[in-house]
């Protein structure tokens, strides 16, 4: 490097080892179809869907099998041509039993997707567009799986001045968004164009961390001249993909605590969600598959896979050669992901990664006394005092927790990552927040 350009970022945060080298150069690859698919009705934040099929019914690939169960809810589609074999309780990756539809793939089907695209999106009015987004089962693919149409419905009097597209992928190990930007830039840009037009956005910015220079280049090459889409390189820092940190990094603006980005005229969406939008409006393909990074020392063949939603996690790991002595499997990234109790659970719409760790690679931090070194304060993007919050949470002092803004915590785990004393800070904070919510709920 001849010069060291300074890229934008937010203040505080941490720099974990990226661990992306194993998969960042691996092209997206299709996961072969397997025998059975499990589709929990509640994959998104909000209400679960309502099943529209019955046991024994044949379904086609992309057919709607559950309709939205409310406003903050989306439709669910069959990822394969096959037959509904079971409707009932199945294991969610979080360990709970939830209502799910199980589909057996038709072994004789070619699994060709039969396109039935919606009417031309460019001529569509906004409310029809939003209905279509909901019926296409769109959720944010960054991990939180928030129903997209809810974000797109601007309340009376609110304007979308800036459309911010999140291409940070700041979680270590994960490279699926990276590959989508490198390999599907046309779809990403097309998705941004569609959305920006429907939101009447003042301009669009795609923020990409500079550990993905090929992603920046490939997107830039597909931005048409004169369009108001900007690809903005950002410094590499965790948790830059958290939407409030992203907004601070890109525009220098702070979303007020307890408010939404829309309150300051900004809508944030993930890059992969943009490609999924284009897939639906241009090809008629609802959200039935997604890119997933499979990595970690527990798999022999790390990969970036396009996986049909509902594929059992065991099958995905088997395809990548899971190691016999795998001790821990994480869904999502290693900073905010969820440890799995069972591999029978399926890949969900929000599954960005599956990481397998062998015993030797699992972290068993020893806990020491807090020495008040202050590193957690300098890690916290929200400028909280995590050390104090952990202490208060441990003591069960809920009022003091609230007075110290515990509810502002986005649970990114940067404090715990950096703590030399191995204090499970964010875990204690989560417990404290839960207790506060519980107290509010029971007080009525």
């Amino acid at each position, binding site marked *: 490097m001849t010069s060291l350009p300074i890229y934008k970022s937010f203040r505080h945060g941490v720099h974990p*080892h990226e661990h992306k080298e194993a998969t960042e150069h691996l092209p997206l690859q299709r996961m072969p179809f397997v025998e059975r698919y499990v589709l929990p009705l509640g994959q998104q934040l909000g209400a679960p869907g309502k099943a529209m099929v019955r046991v024994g019914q044949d379904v086609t690939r992309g057919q709607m099998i559950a309709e939205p169960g409310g406003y903050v809810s989306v439709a669910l589609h069959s990822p394969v041509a096959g037959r509904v074999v079971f409707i009932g309780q199945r294991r969610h990756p979080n360990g709970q039993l939830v209502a799910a539809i199980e589909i057996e793939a038709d072994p004789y089907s070619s699994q060709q997707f039969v396109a039935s695209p919606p009417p031309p999106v460019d001529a569509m009015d906004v409310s029809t567009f939003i209905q279509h987004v909901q019926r296409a089962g769109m959720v944010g693919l960054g991990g939180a799986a928030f129903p997209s149409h809810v974000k797109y419905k601007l309340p009376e009097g609110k304007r979308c001045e800036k459309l911010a597209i999140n291409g940070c992928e700041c979680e270590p190990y994960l490279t699926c968004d990276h590959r989508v930007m490198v390999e599907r830039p046309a779809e990403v840009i097309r998705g941004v164009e569609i959305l920006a037009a429907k939101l009447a956005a003042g301009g669009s910015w795609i923020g990409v961390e500079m550990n993905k220079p090929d992603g920046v280049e490939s997107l830039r090459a597909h931005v048409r001249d004169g369009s108001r889409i900007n690809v903005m390189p950002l410094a590499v820092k965790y948790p830059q993909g958290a939407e409030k940190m992203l907004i601070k990094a890109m525009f220098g603006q702070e979303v007020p605590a307890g408010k939404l980005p829309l309150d300051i005229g900004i809508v944030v969406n993930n890059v992969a969600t943009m490609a999924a939008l284009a897939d639906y409006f241009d090809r008629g393909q609802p959200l039935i598959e997604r890119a997933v990074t499979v990595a970690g020392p527990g798999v022999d063949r790390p990969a970036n896979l396009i996986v049909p939603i509902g594929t059992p996690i065991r099958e995905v790991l088997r395809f990548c050669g899971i190691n016999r002595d795998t*001790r821990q499997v994480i869904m999502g990234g*290693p900073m905010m992901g969820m440890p799995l*109790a069972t591999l029978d659970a399926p890949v969900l719409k929000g599954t960005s990664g599956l990481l397998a760790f062998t015993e030797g690679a699992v972290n068993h931090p020893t806990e020491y006394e807090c020495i008040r*070194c202050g590193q957690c304060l300098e890690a916290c993007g929200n400028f909280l*005092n995590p050390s104090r919050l952990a202490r208060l949470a441990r003591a069960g002092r809920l009022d003091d927790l609230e007075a110290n803004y515990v509810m502002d915590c986005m649970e990114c785990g940067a404090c715990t990552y950096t703590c030399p004393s191995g204090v*499970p800070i964010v875990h204690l904070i989560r417990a404290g927040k839960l207790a506060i919510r519980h107290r509010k709920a029971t007080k009525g």
Partner: protein
Amino acid sequence: MTTGQGRLLLQAAPFLRRGITTPRLMTEVIIGMGPVMLAAMYFFGLSALLVMLAGVAGAVAAEWAFGKARPRGASLRDGSAILTGLVLALTLPPGIPLWMAFLGGAVGLALGKSAMGGLGQNMFNPALVGRAFIQAAFPSVLTTWSAQGNINSFFTIRASNFALPFMHPAADAVATATPLGLMKFERQSTDLLHLLLGNTAGSLGETCALVILICGVIMAIRRVFDWRIPASILLTVAVVSTIVWLVDSSRYPAPWFMLCSGGLLFGAVYMATDPVTSPITPRGAWIFGAGVGVIVVLIRLWGGLPEGVMYAILLMNAATPLIDRVSQPRPFGRGRVAA
């Protein structure tokens, strides 16, 4: 595959850790003090080594004895007792009887740390509690500064080191005044070069300004401690003493003399930076350092003692909870809020 047997390990996120642990931080400080210890041995010979061993032995013995009474048991594993003993020893004169160094280490650890609840709970820097104890109990010892030997006298151990407990130590053969003592009582400055290189009288670890400075910069870069604290102390001392010096340069010492003499650098780098007893907030670190700096200048120029670093740090240790309270960061997305 084991993974099929439902024996997957469940932990709470995050699953990655930075890998820098508290014992490692302690070790880094001890390593970062290595050159200072070597300089002490270079200037004061084997006596320096003996005093350091005695201080560490006292601290470790007390940690072991009192740690057992704590619910989590003795915590020798975090290495903080060794560090306390070393820091204490480096603030003592080379001719101190070894039993006093041992007792200082033990009292510092027992009163300064164990009695407060152990690592992380103590309000005052345990090494300074030990030193304050020695100063209160045996004041004459901390005002008797033996002159430096040279490399040829490395193995000449000061006789006073072996004084028996509670007996009068034999008077040191060559007692001299420290640069600060010379300044205070005789208005006599010491050459800056001597201060930088360390060939003056003083405590074991405080004489060689250059070594401490270099070690401090390296440790700050490695984020072993909060760089704001020493930066703020030195900046404050520099600014305040420059103003005073400009007012009357015939009565008051020059700022470079203030910065390089006595225990200021050693205290700023190795004692004020103790995370447990200094503010946790970044803004608090600046306030803390400024307080230490002002008190050091006040004591040195207008107090009864030639040196004030120890009391300055101890006083600001006491103010730390208050500083933390008024220096909480402004949370993201919130306007200025009352503390």
